[in-house]
């Protein structure tokens, strides 16, 4: 079983005059959330209607309905789960969209329809390889072991045991308890999922290395048509360089002014963040003018997707970026710990992070100007914050499997569980015990 976290993004065109009804419907669904049992593979669902936006002052980008979910496992199965759990809601909302069959359609046809509306997205998860069904058991396991150790401490000899002796006794106790002995086995599919996640990057790296190798070998030997492969690496480098030069030209185009959000709307948006631990935000903005920007962003998003195993954004549960409408619109959604007023700072407070994220965000209207993507101008931070808020939309329906555990909690619970199987040195055991 795959434990890779994925993002499903479904996008549907909708007539502008239906948008209000759609959003009202979604707000109503939001008040009657589906049960967690009905969505066993799903962490989050964000669902909203997006009004038309204008690209480069002349092109009207259509109103859309976006449904974005975070799930674990296969896409096909996830679509089936969604249709089973919220099929009726989907039918009611999709009835407003362009191209949705007028007649009643079966679940199977609905799955097919949804699959056709799916878009590529670059997806990030802050707690990789944990499935929803493991979240609560891992939390309970850690709490149970903590309670068990506390009880053992009533025996004065327990406290004087060596770290290895304590670890052995914990493992024995877990092994013997029928409610928790599942934890003595490694999560199924963990290793395979890690390799699968790295496969695209591995393949890409392999091709580049092979290209270099063939280029080198072809100096001495005639490799026939294999020599074509030697051009792959230089082609990639030259293409990126060319794109960067073309982008540089477009960086000089002054984007049209944006409508800055007023205090009332700002307050209305942030006031929706009522959860104490996990909240969500959605930002959708047209790109700044320039066709090479669109291409550059598309390439960047695919490269970022390849390295997602190694990426890290503190306090973020999940995030995704995608382009819509021929690449002229960027969608960004994130679920994060605490409030967005704090979370949004995480991007700009760190020099390195704000530089990395400029590779994506600098193409979008409302975001500060850059030079060669990384050199930032005056008032970068202020304008960044303004940009985020000016293009933020209310997520009308938001489902979250977990609203009580922070990213660190999830990672800590998992690390404790995995420690049950690991051989450790004494100082490692001491650290592991501190996870309790």
């Amino acid at each position, binding site marked *: 079983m795959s434990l890779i976290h994925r993002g499903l993004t479904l996008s549907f065109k909708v007539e502008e005059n239906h948008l209000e009804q759609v959003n009202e419907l979604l707000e109503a669904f939001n008040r009657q959330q589906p049960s967690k049992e009905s969505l066993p593979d799903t962490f989050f669902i964000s669902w909203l209607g997006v009004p038309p936006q204008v690209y480069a002052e002349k092109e009207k980008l259509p109103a859309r309905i976006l449904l974005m979910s975070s799930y674990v496992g296969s896409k096909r199965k996830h679509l089936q789960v969604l249709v089973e759990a919220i099929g009726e809601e989907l039918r009611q909302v999709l009835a407003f969209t362009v191209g949705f069959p007028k007649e009643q359609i079966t679940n199977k046809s609905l799955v097919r329809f949804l699959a056709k509306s799916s878009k590529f997205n670059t997806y990030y998860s802050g707690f990789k390889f944990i499935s929803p069904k493991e979240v609560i058991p891992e939390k309970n396991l850690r709490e149970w072991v903590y309670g068990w150790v506390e009880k053992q401490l009533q025996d004065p000899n327990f406290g004087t045991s060596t770290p290895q002796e304590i670890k052995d006794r914990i493992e024995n106790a877990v092994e013997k308890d029928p409610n928790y002995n599942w934890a003595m086995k490694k999560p199924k599919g963990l290793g395979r999922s890690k390799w699968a996640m790295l496969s695209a990057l591995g393949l890409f790296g392999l091709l580049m290395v092979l290209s270099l190798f063939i280029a080198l070998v072809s100096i001495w030997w005639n490799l026939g048509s294999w020599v074509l492969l030697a051009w792959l690496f230089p082609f990639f480098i030259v293409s990126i360089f060319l794109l960067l030069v073309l982008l540089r030209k477009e960086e000089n185009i002054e984007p049209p002014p944006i409508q800055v959000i007023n205090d009332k709307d700002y307050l209305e948006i942030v006031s929706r963040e009522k959860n*104490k631990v996990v909240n969500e935000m959605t930002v959708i903005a047209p790109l700044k003018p320039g066709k090479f920007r669109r291409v550059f962003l598309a390439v960047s998003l695919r490269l970022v997707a390849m390295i997602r195993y190694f990426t890290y954004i503190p306090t973020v549960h999940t995030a995704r970026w995608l382009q819509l409408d021929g690449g002229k619109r960027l969608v960004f959604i994130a679920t994060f710990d605490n409030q967005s007023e704090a979370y949004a700072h995480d991007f700009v407070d760190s020099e*390195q992070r704000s530089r990395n994220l400029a590779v994506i965000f600098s193409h979008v209207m409302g975001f500060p100007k850059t030079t060669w993507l990384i050199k930032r101008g005056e008032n970068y931070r202020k304008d960044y914050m303004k940009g985020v808020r000016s293009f933020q939309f209310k997520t009308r329906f938001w489902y979250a499997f977990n609203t009580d555990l*922070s990213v660190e909690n999830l990672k800590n619970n998992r690390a404790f569980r995995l420690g049950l199987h690991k051989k450790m040195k004494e100082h490692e055991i001491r650290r592991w015990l501190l996870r309790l």
Partner: protein
Amino acid sequence: MAIETIIHGSDLELHDMQGILIRGYGALPEAKYLLLGFEDRKLAKSYLKDMHLLITNGLVKPKDQAMNFALTASGIKTLGINEEDFSTFLREFKEGMTEPHRQFVLGDKGEFSAGNWDWGQPGGEKVDLLLMVFAKDHELMEKILDREKERMERFGVKLLHSLPTALLQDHKEHFGFRDDISQPRIKELAKTYQEGDFPAGEFFLGYRDLYDEYPLSPSVAEQEDSMDLLPISYENKQRKDLGKNGSYLVFRQMQQDVVAFWEYMKTKTISEEEAILLASKMVGRWPDGSPLTLCPDGPNMDLSQENDFNFWKEDKLGLKCPIGAHIRRTNPRDHLVTETNAKDSKEMAGKHRMLRKGRPYGKPLEADIDPLKMMMKADDGEERGLHFICLVTDIRRQFEFVQNSWVNFHKFGGLDQDADPIIGNHYQEGNLKTDEFSVPQFPVRKKYEKLPNFTKVRGGAYFFVPGMRAMKFLSKALE
């Protein structure tokens, strides 16, 4: 007035700043915070105009008395600023500390709820101005207060609350711990540069901040400033900068329950030494101020003012100073659990510092504030606490961020249900608990449960401290 001119700070327009921005008036032990309400625009402006010469600026170091002031959003409005100009103030300032979402962000619910406050509460008396009066002794303070009361009467200004202060011995606060050790150093005011000094723009408007940008500063349309009192705005050359040499001031009156604090320590431990150790673990320093990170086994007087230490290398796991300790939450230095290295942690933590200016109030439970004696004392019925005052240029990034993400967020640093043990709001609501404190130790962390609220907010508001020119503008222009 006896004064002494200071020589450094040449990059700052000290003459245009109110003195509270530059110093805490430590040499003037008597202080009163007066909360005033305006009744009439014209009279309020005359009151301010009349006060101009009485305000101590940043250039002088007074030896006998000082007076500074700050305005709330309603005070600014009463003085006649128009909607467009008013909109240039920070959103948090305009909304005020008691707007429902701000209350949510600040964690002001339950016992902390603004509905329970003595002042600044929603629907309560409208506070317009905070007058901060400092004097060398009680007699002089009384004289100044008589003068001020007469001025208030003359200009129809209402005295709503008079908040007393009392400096405690050895710079301590009421729980018995040395306070005010970790203050950010301002680069432009320091005689010599040290790594980690903060640019003035973090605390004073009109100067560059840590992002090398000018902080958002309130401004007025050029034509409003017909007397040409204000400098040109950095944001918009068609406007005048009302904020230059000013700052935003956050005021929270925090009542401290000293008896409950030591009672809790006593009931959770088996000896007085252990009670002090637990309290020190919660604070992160020993009562004398020495940091647990440097001297985990006992206090060290030589380190009582020590502030040059970090956590990443010295105590990443919190075995000396717990991750959830008060000083680790309000200034995590180089160790944020969510960051992957010390450099990033330091960079992130540095963006959320405040310049503290407050003072304690109320009679100490024990004259010498000795924890051992305080542990034995019964409740004397007296109210005591801290008037927390800080200066910032970005209320949300600095004060509210710390309050929300570090002090009250019970998941801070990967913890489960721990708000700040000293100043956090401790409560239980369904599955949600914020009233625990975890002490990492072998073989398993020690969890202290059901922490009562050792502090409670009794009042609070956001203020704007104008510069001297801005003060003149507010009192003379906008007629």
